[in-house]
């Protein structure tokens, strides 16, 4: 090997790490993820099936578990569409128009992410609880919001509030408004423009937001725990049911119900990856945000 070859070789090597460093870094990264992500995920299913299929099925078919599953589904079915409509309205006004105070509005929309889940629940107790602002009036009219299903739904809407909006706002801002303006000037109505022009452009971002919103809505614990009152069979969502079973040392049942939620998480991650892939292919940039 000539001197010249050698210097080219060493120059090439110096923009990459040596093989041993590469392997070490990969090992550290995978070890970290194994310890904190893969092992917990695996152990949920391991614990759930540790006493066999029968106990697993019993745990998720028991009436209290079924009513918790039902309440979780109801909660998600109300809160996700509510935040979807809001997200579209917010993104339309913010991305398609110029007005004063826009950046303040965007910050306010993000606010629920900065609030602890427990505090999110607390504010509704202060508002609607027996000693709250509207509490006495509600009691006089025999309306129960706190320690009842409406409170659970409201708290869930609060904690999942920004998910869809903050996905759609940057996406629609990046797309501009030329296409919509063209449609309007060609005589399309506002709704026609939205359904035929805007919606096809944002469909992957929309789905992305809905998936993440749904995962959080079904899994929310802190906020719901504060407003629920933990009435078995009535105001228990799946995460709250898991807590009760766990605190009763009924570990197999707790992990069985938890495994359903873990499955939901896996499905969420799967769809999320698919959506990311599709969005990349169709050239629609997604905004990854926590």
């Amino acid at each position, binding site marked *: 090997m000539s001197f010249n070859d050698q210097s080219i070789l060493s120059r090439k090597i*110096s*923009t990459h790490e040596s093989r041993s460093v590469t392997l070490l870094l990969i090992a550290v990264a995978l070890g970290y993820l194994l310890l904190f992500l893969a092992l917990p995920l695996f152990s949920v299913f391991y*614990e759930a099936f540790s006493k066999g299929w029968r106990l697993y099925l019993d745990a998720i078919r028991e009436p209290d578990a079924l009513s918790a599953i039902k309440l979780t589904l109801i909660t998600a079915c109300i809160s996700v569409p509510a935040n979807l409509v809001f997200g579209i309205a917010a993104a339309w006004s913010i991305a398609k128009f110029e007005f004063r105070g826009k950046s303040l509005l965007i910050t306010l929309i993000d606010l629920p992410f900065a609030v602890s889940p427990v505090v999110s629940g607390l504010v509704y107790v202060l508002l609607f609880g027996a000693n709250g602002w509207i509490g006495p009036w509600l009691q006089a009219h025999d309306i129960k919001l706190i320690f009842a299903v409406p409170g659970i739904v409201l708290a869930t809407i609060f904690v999942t509030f920004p998910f869809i909006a903050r996905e759609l706002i940057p996406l629609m801002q990046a797309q501009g408004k030329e296409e919509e303006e063209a449609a309007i000037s060609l005589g399309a109505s506002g709704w026609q423009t939205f359904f035929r022009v805007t919606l096809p452009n944002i469909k992957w971002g929309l789905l992305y937001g809905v998936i993440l919103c749904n995962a959080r809505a079904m899994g929310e614990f802190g906020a719901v725990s504060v407003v629920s009152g933990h009435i078995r069979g009535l105001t228990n969502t799946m995460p709250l049911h898991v807590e009760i079973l766990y605190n009763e040392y009924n570990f197999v049942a707790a992990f069985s119900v938890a495994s359903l939620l873990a499955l939901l998480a896996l499905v969420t991650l799967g769809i999320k990856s698919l959506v990311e892939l599709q969005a990349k292919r169709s050239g629609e940039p997604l905004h990854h945000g926590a």
Partner: protein
Amino acid sequence: MSKFKAHSVLPGFNLSLGYTLLYLSLIVLIPLSALFFKTATMGWSGFYDLATGERVLASLRVTFFASFAAAVLNALFGLIVAWVLVRYTFPGKRVVDALVDLPFALPTAVAGITLAALYAPNGWIGHYFAAYDIKIAYTPLGIVVALTFIGLPFVVRTVQPVLADVEAEVEEAAASLGAGRLAVFRRVIFPAVYPALLTGFALAFARAIGEYGSVIFIAGNMPYISEIAPLLIVSKLEQYDYAGATAIAVLMLLVSFALLFAINGLQWWNSRRGTR
């Protein structure tokens, strides 16, 4: 612009903005303001007494230090994970990449009971530590474990795109001028990802401060030792001590807002550097 809104041919401004403001007020602003009105009825000295009680301060200390430790862990290992995912190829990389988001998708209660089982003295991981007389679950260390899990995606996801944008030419130029690999990282790559790393750190820290579900199962919840502030809010509520719960909530909210402000500043700094 002297008018409130610039002219546009597109319809639906009044409807969409009106609905946005109405919904925002009803769901977020009015309920949150209830917190501050409740505080106002206590008076300053009443609030001060409640917010500086010994048990409250202890819980805030536990929350703060555990969140900080978890965010530091995540900053360090998150940077390595982001680096490995951007720079190297290995089998199963796609699955690993998708798995990083697990803490966003897995309900916190599930994470809590699972981590408690794993890190308990007789758990798969805990028993290795128990052999050396180290307890993780049911101690403040357990809180750090739970908060590390919760915050794991933040640093990885903020650093990843910035790291991918570092141009190979810059690295090559540095290398051809005689910089070793470590020097290139220290002088070229690290300064480029530093703002993103800090943003990820702040996001993970902010999330950890408010976290409740995953922590309560693994913490042991001993007052003054392993009791986090959100748990203290819940126990005050269970004793119908609304004023006490509100005082802690307001303190936490102020910390969260300060962090949100800092994060926005960091992101602004980050994007300015990106476009330069």
